[in-house]
């Protein structure tokens, strides 16, 4: 790890100005992605600004037709929240499927979204459930947030403050984990929402995406059997040590059906 200066601001403004003043600064939340990167000297930063001291960023609130999860809320807290489980069980289950207990006790939803790992689970929840990402300067719709591999609509220095999930009519998440890391080889979130059926696929491609053919089939008939005969193309999907593009394309359909079944 290269040397850096550590800061722990107690307000959003302080955090933002610390970053603005830093030569090459980075926010840190759970540190589950940033710390390994720093340890392996794959990144060099001058300042690390810990968001953990900003009280307003943490916590879960149920507000009528939506549920709000603060940016520094840990995966384990989302998984264990009775409110989340009652309102959107699929979200609690998704959080519970992330990594291992140590990762879930440290990692945060804000860090996961800002990082936008192609195999991360939360992007599927945000995109599939049509959530809104709130930052210290604006609100970003899920469809606009994920722009590419490890890329998001966030501007430099912009801080995610919370994520607002509208309650779906039903939703289900199914994941095929990587046996080593437990990230998603393929994860599919399906949801019947006020704005129609949404299907978000993570792990399979360079960035989370909506599977429009699956959405179309489910809009007509929200059942697993409605997906018989539907396929996704392997063309733009990832191939690596753990799964070829062809296998991933197959798994997308299997997971989509299982997610529909889980949604009930």
């Amino acid at each position, binding site marked *: *790890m*290269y*040397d850096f200066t550590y800061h722990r601001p107690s307000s959003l403004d302080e955090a933002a100005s610390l970053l603005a003043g830093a030569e090459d600064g980075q926010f840190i939340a759970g540190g589950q992605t940033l710390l390994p990167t720093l340890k*392996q*000297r794959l990144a060099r930063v001058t300042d690390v600004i810990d968001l953990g001291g900003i009280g307003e960023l943490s916590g879960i609130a149920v507000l009528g037709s939506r549920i709000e999860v603060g940016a520094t809320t840990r995966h384990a807290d989302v998984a264990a929240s009775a409110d989340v489980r009652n309102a959107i069980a699929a979200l609690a289950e998704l959080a519970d499927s992330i990594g291992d207990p140590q990762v879930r006790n440290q990692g945060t939803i804000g860090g996961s979204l800002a990082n936008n790992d192609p195999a991360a689970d939360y992007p599927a929840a945000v995109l599939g459930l049509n959530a809104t990402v709130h930052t210290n300067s604006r609100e970003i719709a899920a469809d606009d947030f994920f722009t590419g591999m490890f890329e998001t609509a966030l501007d430099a220095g912009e801080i995610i403050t919370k994520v607002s999930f509208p309650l779906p009519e039903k939703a289900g998440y199914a994941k*095929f984990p*990587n*046996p*080593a*890391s437990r*990230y998603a080889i393929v994860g599919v979130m399906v949801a019947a929402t006020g704005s129609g059926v949404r299907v978000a696929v993570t792990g399979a491609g360079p960035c989370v995406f909506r599977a429009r053919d699956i959405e179309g089939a489910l809009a007509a008939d929200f059942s697993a059997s409605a997906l018989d005969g539907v396929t996704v193309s392997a063309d733009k999907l990832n191939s690596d*040590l*753990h*799964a*070829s593009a062809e*296998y991933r394309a*197959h*798994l997308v359909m*299997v997971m989509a059906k299982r997610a529909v079944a889980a949604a009930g």
Partner: protein
Amino acid sequence: MTRVEIGQAVRRQEDFRFLTGRGRYIDDIDMEGQARGVVLRSSHAHAVINSIDVADALEAPGVLLIVTGRDWIAEGFGPMPTKSGVRKNRDGSELHEPPRHCFAIDRVRYVGEPVAFVVAETEAAAIEARDLIVVDYDELPAVVDGVAALKPGAPRIWDDIPANLCLDFELGDERAVDAAFGKAAHVVTLDLVNNRVTAVPIEPRGCVASYDPETETFTLYNATQNVHANAATFAENVLKIDKDRLHHIAPDVGGGFGAKNSAYPESPMALYAARKLNRPVKWINSRIESFLSDTHGRGQTSRVQLALDGDGRFLALRTETVGGIGAYCWTVGPFTPTAGSARTQGGPYDFPAIYYRGRAVFTNTAPMDPYRGAGRPEATFQIERIIEFAARKLGFDPVELRRKNLMPPDMLPHTTPMGLNVDCGDFPRVFERTLGLADQAGLAERAGSARRRGRRFGFAVAPYLECTGGGPREYAGVGFRAGGAISLSVGSQSTGMGHETSMAQLLAARLGVDFERIEYHQGDTEKTPIGGGHGGSRGLEIGGNAVAQAADEVIGKAKAVAAHLLQSRTDDVAFAAGVFRGSGASVSMAEVIEASFDPKLLPGNLSPGCLDTGATFERGEVSVPNGCHAAAVEVDPETGFVEVVGYWVVDDFGTIINPLLADGQVMGGIAQGIGQALSEEIVYDEDSGQLITASLMDYGLPRADGVPNMVIEYYQGAPTAKNPLGVKGAGEAGCVGSLPAVVNAVLDALKDDGVRHIDMPLTPEKVWRAIADPNAGGPVDLMGDVL
């Protein structure tokens, strides 16, 4: 205060320490004034080193010393020799052993090979400086697979070694095998891969070295399995000093499995730096570097051929194996794919003839050395896979085919065509018992339930027979102190298996003293004059017998003291359960020990300390642990995901000293076997020779949720007469039986899909592909080009 017996499930003494953070592992050791070392490792699989520029690095803050291969040679240090038990090719010539120095000398031959050692005030400063070293490489073509390395036109790893061939070994009567094949009703051939894996001990390797200029002696704390042998290599071969000048200590070691067996290069680097700088030097490997630089295991490609008569009786077995061993001969590297995999060919089956040929081949990869079982899991996998394959191909029931060919008890003792003396056991009984356990667990019902849930169900049974190994001699020392403490020092070593409990249990039970009085010592060249460390399931078999022998010598001496106290003749005193009885009166061992410190109570020819004893036990023949595994699996046909849902084992380890510890060995070995069978694999890129699976994000270690509950039983009806305790070695057996049990169970699940073979690891994608296309997994001709 507790009395313990042999065979009792005594709980592990060491666990409280380990589980509450009080273990003392290598990274817990810090010395006054210590500096930190880090290794610059090769980033290329094969390249000429044109130059190494350390000028900028030497200027970096806190840097104390940088050593390169050239510096090392200039110091006159020597290479580390292999201790391979076989050194002769089948034509009688000597194996090829290129010099294995601690550093790459002018050429790197695998990714991760040490190029320089940087010592600085702190680890961070050393890493900072390491980044400033500029190495100018000219890349050479690399070859990472053993079979590919043998093929004509393959890149040469050593200019003067043809075909990259290190050792070409054979065993058995090839002509008898040929004759049997000639008249056989059926000959079945299967090419298979035993995938390359690595042990991933939870504690990475590391060491802390120091030097005392006054006495000119070194002290080396080291996360190693083998203090004595490695001290000799470091001192005599590398540093060229007397081995008594190196005090080598292994503190608590967090797992070894063979990967901490070898003499590794970083220890001499740290020793040299400690002397040069006159301050202690500590080095700890990172996890990624562990993947790059720990020894790997398995990694064999084989052609297995089985000849049967019309009734399914086995007539002959022929196995030809190629094992890539990395770029150098490590401590026993050439041994594993050759003699190490030969000895137990044929398993517990009655074979009139067997022929084995094994070639150890240089490759541009990390070194190969023992990994739990080292050759016996490979041999068991070969025989069990070919039987399963033959059964499917020829239409025999796989259980019946095994039953028919197991050696019956009245055939024992029997020397196999591989020269292994199988002295005792009851293979059919162990086999039937294992099947019985699985039946009791409701196998049929489970199968039905799996099918109703849309899953394929598979079951397989895998009898195994293996043999022990490792250094044949062991020392145990017993020392008594006034006040009651008894020290027990043993030259074999636990890296987590629980010797602190089992060895103490043995001594306490034998002497009839309280278990808590025993203080256990191991892993220290000054505590025992010799020591074979850890390896080859030798702990109880050799170390335990040394303890028993020492205990018996103590009892003999104590009898004289007891006779004096009881005013009887020594011959009239009997000892049992911790009590000496003369005519009428009796005295306990504890009382005798106490009396041994009082000159007034001792006979004239004895003085205080007279009970202290050191005993050396020497093994005659290796013992033959055996048993039977059975596994049940469910396969999700939509994803190819395999779940092991049931596991049954009956083991014949001879006498069981502590069933709790034996269970731990069996479970751990099976967990490793499940890992290798389903998810673990070291993968090098074929072209670049880069290690692709260099972290736990990509290397699929098994996890608790992938390991089922196991039903474990012991057959204790056949203690071996090869050693006084009648023990057969338990440490590796779990790994030996589990590979074929799991793989054959998966193939059983897929039999109606027409799938006959899939090479390990049986990853979901491979299984899914095989279901879609039964020939996707093979078998294919892997060996044709090199036979």
